[in-house]
């Protein structure tokens, strides 16, 4: 079955896409690939909601006065932007779409360990999504995605409880996804597929799942406490009734800092796959890259209070957390160095996914290094809660996560859809994304250092030039994000039929058909090779990666 090329004029083989066409066969499917497609559609929808709010923010900030909308509206807009992007896009995007699709195939399993729980996860996500949409349409929330008490528990009159419930439900979707992944990776690997032979994407998703399982319940209970406090006017976090608002921040960031690694780790996994394939090399220092994912997940739990250096925590706690934070820098740096070293003596092609990988390395390097600024106590006091922070986490979360996601989506699109995307358009959009991104967010570093606080609806006129640059960049970025949406849809009908392994890539997912059959493999594969055995795969250099 390996590398069987399907001629375009023949009826395609039975695969997961044409195995049943009814709505029911999609909405009640337990096939991880179909669920991944369901996620792809829903996550993309929320991305465009979130993106719409982002554009509103940038338009408002074009001028120093608050002239496009009311202050309250603006506050709701950035809150909804944050909540939707964080809880309904960035956290699920790579694991739920690419992870869901690829993890069972990459380890040679027929499905995830608990297919019905997988479907349940999607429904929970959708219920949470409907709730947040409902909140969005009926008045919104204005606390920022961070729900800081006592503003959220006593002072705002917006729909905190409903929004909290939405996040709570989406959180359980995430918990079940993580649980499913861990069990699958432990229990369902094909014969011969030892831990040291696993693709790095699997390692990354494993680390992500650990955080989902260990962190998400804490934020869930925290949100419950906020809702209870708000409904019954208790004082769990409200200082007027004896509570401590900093406790909320501790509990919230205990999850929400590692959540950043939920977002970035799977993308790092994608990048490892891309760099290996398009350099035609085994990743340099495979073991270190694999273990660095786990290290990031574990150390990520030790650093949360670096979000609270000026919040009123003790001097000594701040020092402990600052010190621990630098430890996260090490495994992150190890990854970047190893990717770069992989290029050495490779055979590098510049297909779109690889362009995204280059973009990822660049943006993540900047995002990661500016993270060190924020971990440094003396600097953080000045730049925290300013646009410096906004720029930093967009470099990591948008520059990092989205670059990885888009790179991965292009790379596996032939596998998912059975069609190739148009390479020229894709390269153009990659360029738009990279240029637009830097134009949007680099000025924000400067804005932050000169003192523009975040979540500002109006600002002193001297900040205008940089804000205009940022808004201009955002419009370029928007084009860069809209283009793939259009040409991916176009390719579904008009794209060239993809071969089983258009990239001549290593990995089990390329040994089945494109798109794969419902149970992934006709017979369970037996793995006798190491990961990224590019020396054993014929290097069809200079050959167009499209089958015909």
């Amino acid at each position: 079955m390996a590398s069987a090329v399907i001629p375009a004029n023949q009826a395609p083989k039975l695969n997961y896409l044409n195995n049943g066409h009814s709505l029911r066969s999609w909405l009640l499917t337990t096939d991880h690939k179909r669920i991944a497609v369901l996620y792809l559609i829903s996550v993309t929808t929320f991305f465009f909601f979130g993106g719409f709010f982002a554009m509103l923010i940038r338009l408002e900030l074009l001028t120093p006065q608050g002239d496009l909308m009311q202050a309250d509206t603006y506050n709701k807009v950035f809150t909804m932007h944050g909540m939707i992007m964080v809880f309904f896009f960035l956290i699920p995007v790579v694991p739920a779409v690419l992870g869901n699709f690829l993890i069972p195939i990459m380890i040679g399993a027929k499905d995830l360990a608990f297919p019905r729980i997988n479907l349940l996860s999607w429904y929970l996500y959708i219920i949470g999504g409907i709730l947040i949409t409902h909140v969005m349409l009926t008045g919104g929330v204005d606390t920022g995605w961070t729900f800081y008490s006592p503003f959220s528990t006593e002072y705002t009159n917006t729909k905190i409880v409903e929004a909290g419930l939405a996040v709570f439900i989406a959180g359980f979707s995430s918990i079940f996804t993580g649980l499913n992944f861990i069990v699958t990776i432990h229990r369902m690997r094909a014969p011969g597929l030892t831990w040291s032979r696993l693709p790095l994407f699997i390692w990354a998703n494993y680390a992500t799942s650990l955080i989902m399982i260990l962190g998400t319940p804490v934020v869930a209970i925290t949100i419950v406490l906020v809702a209870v406090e708000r409904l019954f006017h208790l004082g769990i976090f409200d200082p007027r009734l004896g509570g401590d608002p900093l406790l909320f921040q501790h509990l919230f960031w205990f999850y929400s800092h590692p959540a950043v690694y939920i977002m970035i780790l799977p993308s790092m996994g994608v990048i490892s796959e891309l760099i290996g394939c398009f350099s035609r090399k085994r990743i340099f220092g495979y073991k270190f890259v694999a273990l660095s994912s786990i290290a990031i997940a574990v150390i990520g739990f030790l650093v949360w209070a670096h979000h609270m250096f000026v919040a009123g925590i003790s001097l000594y706690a701040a020092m402990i957390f600052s010190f621990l934070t630098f430890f996260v820098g090490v495994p992150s740096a190890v990854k970047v160095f190893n990717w770069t070293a992989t290029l050495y003596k490779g055979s590098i092609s510049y297909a779109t996914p690889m362009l995204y990988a280059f973009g990822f390395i660049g943006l993540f390097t900047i995002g990661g290094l500016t993270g060190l600024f924020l971990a440094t106590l003396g600097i953080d006091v000045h730049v925290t809660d300013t646009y410096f922070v906004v720029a930093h986490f967009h470099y990591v979360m948008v520059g990092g996560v989205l670059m990885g996601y888009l790179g991965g989506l292009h790379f596996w699109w032939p596998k998912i859809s059975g069609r190739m995307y148009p390479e020229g358009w894709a390269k153009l959009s990659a360029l738009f994304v990279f240029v637009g991104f830097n134009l949007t967010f680099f000025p924000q570093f400067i804005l932050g250092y000169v003192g523009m606080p975040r979540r500002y609806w109006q600002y002193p006129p001297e900040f205008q030039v940089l804000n205009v640059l940022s808004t201009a960049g955002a419009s370029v970025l928007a084009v860069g994000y809209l283009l793939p949406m259009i040409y991916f849809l176009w390719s579904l009908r008009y794209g060239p039929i993809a071969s089983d392994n258009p990239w001549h890539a290593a990995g089990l997912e390329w040994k089945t058909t494109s798109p794969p059959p419902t149970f992934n493999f006709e017979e369970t594969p037996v793995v006798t090779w190491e990961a990224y055995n590019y020396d054993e795969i014929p290097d069809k250099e200079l050959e167009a990666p499209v089958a015909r």
Partner: protein
Amino acid sequence: MSGQVDALYIYLLLVAGVMTALIFVAVTVLAIKYRRVRGREAQQIEGSTILEITWSVIPFFVMLTFFIWGAVLYFKERTPPADSTEIYVVAKQWMWKFEHMEGQREINELHVPTGQNIKLIMTSQDVIHSFFVPAFRLKQDVLPGRYTTLWFKATVPGRYHLFCAEYCGTNHSGMGGEIVVMEPRDYAQWMAGGPAAPLQETGKQLFATLGCATCHRSDVQGRGPNLVGIYNKPVLLEDGRTVTADENYVRESILNPTAKIVNGFKPVMPTFQGIVSEEQLNALVAYVKSLAQPTPGSAGLQNEPAASPAQTQKTQVQ
């Protein structure tokens, strides 16, 4: 202080710049040099433990310098010098209220002299705010229910932005103002312009009108502890713990008297929660603090042993 933050920032910028350049150049050069060419195959390289250790350990030690420098700076930023002039700050949605010890009050504008250490004692009436002056490179969240402090020494006269940096609701972005830094002479002139009585005088009157003075007596042992000279001194509590009677302790004892009972006293004091406003509370705290000093109002001596032997004796009675 701003110069020191900038120095550290420039150091970080340099290191980060070098690192970024290194990665960018390496990626670009390698990507071009090893681009796919007919007939040239990739060479498989497994990796190198020595390299891995090198590029883990060296960055770590570089980051350690960030940590140490940053922590030292932070410690300075968070430790007000003893000779600071104190100013009380009350934040509320959406304004900043300032009270000078001399009794001057300001809203959204704070006048300070150059060359003088200023310690802000801040609290919030409602939600969390954050006092942010970009020109001073300083920021501190202002919390309801307790005091946080911030200190600075302005050097150059001028008007500087004051922002609220912690999101606080509708008019968050309007909750700003200016720090007006003046030459000491101009400042003295400005200060003389106001009417107002010194803050601790206001506090003293409140102390009398609220009836505090009936129990907290300074001449004989009353039902409450004698407050003369207690500020910044350790206090032995009923449950055996010892706390320092700092601003937050005095504040808590007014609002929540039963929380930390002084050893040897009964929990008979009623709470003043909801009875005194944040401003009145500040005045009371300022008054109690002034009792620690031989001449009320003069800053800088609160760490010296409390004035007369008689007072010291009474402190020990507690």
